[in-house]
Structures are given as structure tokens and as C-alpha cells.
């Protein structure tokens, strides 16, 4: 009930999250969309692959910060979660193909997070060929934020729901993020275990107009231990994320683009810490895998 009384405040936070995801997902999107439409699938794939890697890692982050689930009881909490995947040097360049006949046949050029596009010079003729486009985003991390509702507990199980949408505003396409999952207590079957242990399955999806379609799946186990108001948690998860990019290039010489890229992260280890005071909690965790990712948030309810 306390959670329900806090709804007006929660709306403020939900608005904050809406603003964040709007800025993160659609800021300057018109530039990106019209820029991508200049190129065929080969050129675009390497350029935006790191965006898929990092965004995919974000999508699969932050869905749990406790494994403590009662067998039967009422639980309702609303969390505002921010995620950030770090942009490393590996995400700033990729190996692109030079035109047929060029020597060398490949060269390094900038991804969406890189600097100036690379240039390759043909050893035989001196002809030059430039990488697709300079990096468009100069950032140390890729953020994402979303509200998350957790409802339970029924037979030691909680449902996890994420949803946020931004409307089609001016030329910015509609963006929608939603996710759904369950977390089930494992430790309820093994009362002797001194930790709370749970498993989770989570699926989420992000669409950005007709251009980009992300989906992510995470399956894992997590454990937590509370010490008064302090909670320590961690987990291991297998995950998969895919990014589908679909558009018709403005240059008629290129075929319509419909490519699906897999995110780099397939496994993650999570270590986190949180404070839980009555109906308020804060938490933060670090996630290690192919992509280093952090998530943190505040929660209401319990």
C-alpha cells in the first residue's frame, strides 16, 4: 500500500526515465537514420555493430538485485534502473572491406563510436577509398534507463516487467522498450543454504521506428545475502542479444538492407550491493563479460 501512496512521486521518476531513454535512443536519430540510408549492408554492419553489443548488454542488465523471494506473500516494487556499457577501444574501429581489386583488401575504419574514418590507398594505383562515415558518437559509455515493476510472490516466483515508450515526435520515430521475465526462488527447496538463491529468465525488446529492432534474452542464477539493511548480491547468466537493422538505402545501387547482428555478450558475472530501508532501496552492480556494464537504480516498495 505504501507503494501505491507513492505513485505521484513514482510518476515523476517514470517521467525522468522516459526523458532518459528518449535522449539515449532518439537523440540525433534523424541524422543516424538518414546517414545509414546512404549505405549498403556491408558498410553499415561493422559501423553499428558496437552499438548492438553495448545496447544489448544494457538490455540484459539490472533485472535483479536480490534473490530473496518468499514462498507466498505480497511483493510489489517499482525500480528506476540506469544501465551503462563502457565503450572500449575495441568498439571504436572495425575492419572494413576495400573495393574489389584494392591492395590491401581490408582496412581499419571508425565505428559509430570512433573518430575519423579510415582511408585505404591502393598500392598499385594510389587510388584512395574512405571508410563509410566518421564516428558520430563520442562517449565513454552507452546509457539506458527503464522503469521496472516486480510483482509476486507466488510459489516463490516473481514476475518482472519493463515497459517504456516514446511517441513519434516530429521526425523522431517511435521508440518502445519492453521486457518480461520471471525470477524463481531456488533456495526455498534447500532451506539449509545460508544464502538466498534464485534463477531467472528474462526477455526484452526495443524497437526504434522501423529502423532498428533489438531483442535480448537472459537466463541465469543469482544469490544474495542481507546484513540488516545491506544486501550483497551476485549472479551468473547466459545471455543473447540481437540487433536487426532494416531500411531501404537511398542509393538505388544497394539492395534493401535487412541485417541481424548478434551482441558480443554471451555470458556475464554480476556483483552488486544494495541498501534496503523499509520501502526504499538503492542498488548498484557491475557486470563482467565481453562488455563491461554497470547498472544502478532506486526502488520503491517491497
Amino acid at each position, binding site marked *: 500500500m505504501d507503494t501505491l501512496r*507513492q505513485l505521484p*512521486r513514482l510518476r*515523476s*521518476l517514470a*517521467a*525522468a*526515465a522516459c*526523458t*532518459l531513454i528518449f*535522449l*539515449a535512443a532518439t*537523440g*540525433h536519430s534523424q*541524422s543516424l537514420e*538518414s*546517414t545509414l540510408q*546512404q*549505405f549498403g549492408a556491408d558498410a553499415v554492419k561493422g559501423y553499428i555493430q558496437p552499438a548492438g553489443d553495448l545496447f544489448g548488454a544494457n538490455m540484459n542488465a539490472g533485472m535483479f538485485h536480490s534473490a530473496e523471494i518468499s514462498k507466498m506473500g505480497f511483493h510489489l516494487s517499482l525500480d*528506476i534502473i*540506469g544501465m*551503462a556499457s563502457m565503450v572500449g577501444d575495441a568498439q571504436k574501429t572495425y575492419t572494413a572491406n576495400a*573495393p*574489389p*581489386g*584494392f*591492395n590491401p583488401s581490408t582496412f581499419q575504419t571508425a565505428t559509430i563510436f570512433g573518430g*575519423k*574514418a579510415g582511408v585505404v590507398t*591502393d598500392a*598499385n*594505383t594510389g*587510388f*584512395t*577509398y*574512405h*571508410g*563509410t*562515415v*566518421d*564516428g*558520430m*558518437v*563520442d*562517449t*565513454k*559509455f*552507452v*546509457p539506458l*534507463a527503464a522503469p521496472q515493476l516486480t510483482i509476486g510472490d507466488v510459489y516463490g516466483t516473481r514476475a518482472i516487467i519493463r515497459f517504456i515508450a516514446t511517441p513519434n515526435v516530429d521526425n523522431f520515430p517511435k521508440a518502445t522498450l519492453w521486457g518480461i521475465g520471471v525470477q524463481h526462488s531456488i533456495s526455498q527447496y534447500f532451506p539449509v543454504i545460508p544464502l538466498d538463491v534464485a534463477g531467472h529468465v528474462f526477455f526484452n525488446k526495443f524497437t526504434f521506428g522501423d529502423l532498428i529492432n533489438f531483442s535480448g534474452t537472459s537466463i541465469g542464477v543469482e544469490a544474495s545475502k542481507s546484513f540488516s539493511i545491506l544486501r550483497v548480491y551476485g549472479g551468473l547468466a547466459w545471455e543473447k542479444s540481437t540487433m536487426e537493422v532494416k531500411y531501404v538505402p*537511398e*542509393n*538505388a*545501387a544497394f539492395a534493401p538492407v535487412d541485417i541481424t547482428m548478434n551482441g558480443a555478450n554471451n555470458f556475464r558475472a554480476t556483483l552488486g550491493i544494495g541498501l534496503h530501508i523499509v520501502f526504499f532501496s538503492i542498488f548498484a552492480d557491475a557486470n563482467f563479460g565481453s562488455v563491461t556494464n554497470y547498472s544502478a537504480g*532506486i526502488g520503491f516498495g517491497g
Partner: protein
Amino acid sequence: MKTRFLALVVVAVLPLMAFNCITDSFTIALNLKPFNGTYPITAGNNPNYSGFFTVNPDTMYDIGSYTLDGASVYDVRIATSGPNLGTCAGTVSVNNTLLLTYNGPWTAFNTPQSLLTSQYIRRNQPGIDVLVNAVTKGSLITFTVQGSVTTTPVPAGCSLICSAYVQAYAHKR
């Protein structure tokens, strides 16, 4: 109040830390549609042929969205279509400046020969420069082909195809 304050901090700080770093001044390398010209060779006993085609480079990209900063030629290919006519040899000029010379077996040119790899084509750098300047300035480009074959009579349907591949560097308007 605390919640509102926190919301303000979240809204204000996170975007500032990250995606305000999106740059507007990036350069795009536009692969223009190939400048393709097909030159029919008149059927009969005349071994010589010539022709021209004109391209407006401004029609090769969205001129309303981009401003060109430069261009480069990254290949020119010569191909022939039709049965063996012996050896074909000739020149391709751009705006009256020699771009390349070609000289080789007709059948070899049945597979497009690239300036990058073919032993049958020789480029002329001043012609490349003229082509690059014309694309950058958006002026009309006229490709002129002249040549001859060694085997006659020429049957109907033979032609020579010239394709120039140009990349233009642009920024968003």
C-alpha cells in the same frame, strides 16, 4: 521533495554525461552510383567507333541533404559485349582530358577490366583530377570513348561499356 530532487538529478546528469557527445560535424563517404556509359559499335565493316555520355554528378546523391567537400575515383572499368572482335584499343576522355587508354583482347574485356588490376588499361592522372574536380564542383561530366577493333565485319549488338566509380565526401547540411 527528495524524490523530485533525485528525478531532476537523474534527468540532468545522465544525458550530460553521455549522449550530448553526439557530433554534428561528421564526414560521410558517399559511394555515388557508378557513372555508366554504353557505346554501341555500329555493325558493318568500319572498325572504328566513338561516342560520349554526359553525367550530372549532382543527380548522384541527395544534394538537398549534403554539401560535398571532396571526391576520389576508386576504380574505372572497361567491358565489352558481343562476340570476339580481335583486339580492341582506344581512349576514354573526361571533359576533353584523357582519362585512360585501353588495349587488349576483346574477349578479355568480356569480363570487366579494372583500372586497379588489369594489364590492358592505363590511367592518365590529369584525367582523374578533372573527374574529381568536376564531381566536387558539381559540373557536368562528359565521357568520350574512341577506339577500334581488328576484326570486321562487326556483327549487330556489340558495345563497349565504361564505368567510373567515385566516392564523394560530404557533410550534412
